[in-house]
């Protein structure tokens, strides 16, 4: 079997990217988060309602941190809808498609906050 070194290297980089990084981005540490879209602002409220208890402020808590993960929107949505590991599934009845879009929009602001 011929090894695919490129794939292996990419996998390792992804592991480091997803696993590492300074996740402390709250107001005292990184300053106030400027949310400049209504959708992301709604997303912040929805994040607090559905996500914050396990990912407090996007940081690690009961679950891993989210605010330093370069996961694309579709991957976040897949995780929310299917729940992998200890994460519960959030159905359309609990978080609608539009609400999930808003949460992802907020997460992008949070992730880009330095």
């Amino acid at each position: 079997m011929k090894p695919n070194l490129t794939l292996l290297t990419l996998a390792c980089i992804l592991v480091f990217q997803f696993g590492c990084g300074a996740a402390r981005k709250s107001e005292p540490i990184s300053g106030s988060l400027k949310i400049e879209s209504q959708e992301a602002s709604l997303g912040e409220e929805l994040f607090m309602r559905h996500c914050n208890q396990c990912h407090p402020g996007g940081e690690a808590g009961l679950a891993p941190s989210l605010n330093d993960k370069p996961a694309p929107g579709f991957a976040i949505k897949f995780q929310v809808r299917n729940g992998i590991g200890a994460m519960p599934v959030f159905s359309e009845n609990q978080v609608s498609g539009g609400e999930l879009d808003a949460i992802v929009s907020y997460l992008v602001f949070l992730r880009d906050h330095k």
Partner: protein
Amino acid sequence: MRWNRAKIWVLISLVIAFPACYQVSGYRTVGPIGPVSPIRFVNPGDIVLPEGYLIEAVARGLTCPTGVAFDDSGEIYITEAGYSIGEMSAAPRLLHVSGTGEVTEVASGAENGPWTGVIFHNGFFYVAEGGQLGGGRILRIDRNGVVTPLIDELPSRGDYHTNGPVAGPDGYIYFTIGTYTNSGIVGEDNYKSGWLGKFPELHDIPCQDVVLAGENYTTENFLAPGARGEVETGAFSPFGVRTTKRQAVDGRIPCSGSVLRIGPDGGKAELVAWGFRNPFGMAFSPHGQLFVTENQFEMRGSRPVFGAGDLLWEIEPGRWYGWPDFHGTNPVDVGERYRPPGKGTPRSLLAEYPSRLPPRPAAIFAVHSSTAGFDFSRNPDFGHVGQAFVAAFGNTPTAGKVLAPVGYKIFRVNVQTGVTHDFAVNRGKTNGPASWLSTGGLERPLAARFDPSGAALYVVDFGVLKYGRLGAVPQHGSGVLWRITRKPVLQ
């Protein structure tokens, strides 16, 4: 050969990356490790606040401080618990704090702590006495230290205690009572924590009549060591007492998991709201609305519940708030969300619910963050008027495991939107108590209250809880009273 080197490199990367970054190996409980100095290192510079705010230590060397109050001259007073988790038992105290941080005793109590909080109202101090040995009490204390119980024998000799108090705009004294158990079933966790062996007859008490589902949980008979056989225990029942389907249990007041009130001169307790687990912090908003923080389910006992974040509630008089079958608006027996890994989904204990199901919480905090005392900003000079500033005691090993430490900070909460922000946190690459981070910052914030001017937020820091094989060991003299103010804006 090339493949082997690559494979080894990949494996090494994974071994390094996962434990170091995801903290998989560290799916851990958090508590101070190693020896703790008798005199805690205190350094306000190790605490980070939003731009424009300052923090300083007002008093240190306190033993398990729990509450802060201000008299009509603005003088500062604090309570020391006396009793603490870890079964520490000493005399609870009310202390005056001088401008230089020296403390003098105003009053002390018998070993029936913990004294969980204090207010100053119309010339008297009002203290909530937890009641670990003799039941909870609300005490009125005059300036000379004379203690008068206003109500006693409150049912709080279990896991949680009598908490509060606060004075309402109606002149009543409001207080809370936590539940005996984690989730309605007396079990091994209560035996380990100490109270079941001393008081085997105790159990949770509903505030109103309830009809049980008849769910029972089977455990070893801890009260008869050496005896063979198991016992079944049902909801709202003593250890080893089975319940049946549609069994009725009479409600009574005072009761478990409740918000109650009495007049300023005492009298019979009146029900404000119920269906809480451990309602701890209380404050009235600038608009006169009562809010309460609730420490939610833990991963322990016969009926462990997974992943239930602490809650902030806006209180509607007479309403039921869900315990033992709901977390916020979610029933814990539906789906997998509250099922502990490797265990069954918690079964519903009630056959019928009150006509109105729990409302949506005002805010949801991190699982196991132990959100506690709080207050509302009323002064534009401090900023964020109408928002709540909430102390978070932080997770404990008995509550359940976490990937990273939670709590050990002050939150700012917009109670209209439910959006929470960190307000005061420890400096460093990770969150955690100061003793764990080896810094001089926040250890275990338990209460936050504004002074009468509203210009300064005082934070009561309980101090170091060291965890060993035998459980929690509170460290005498490690408590701190902090003060947060806003820097003057230069014109």
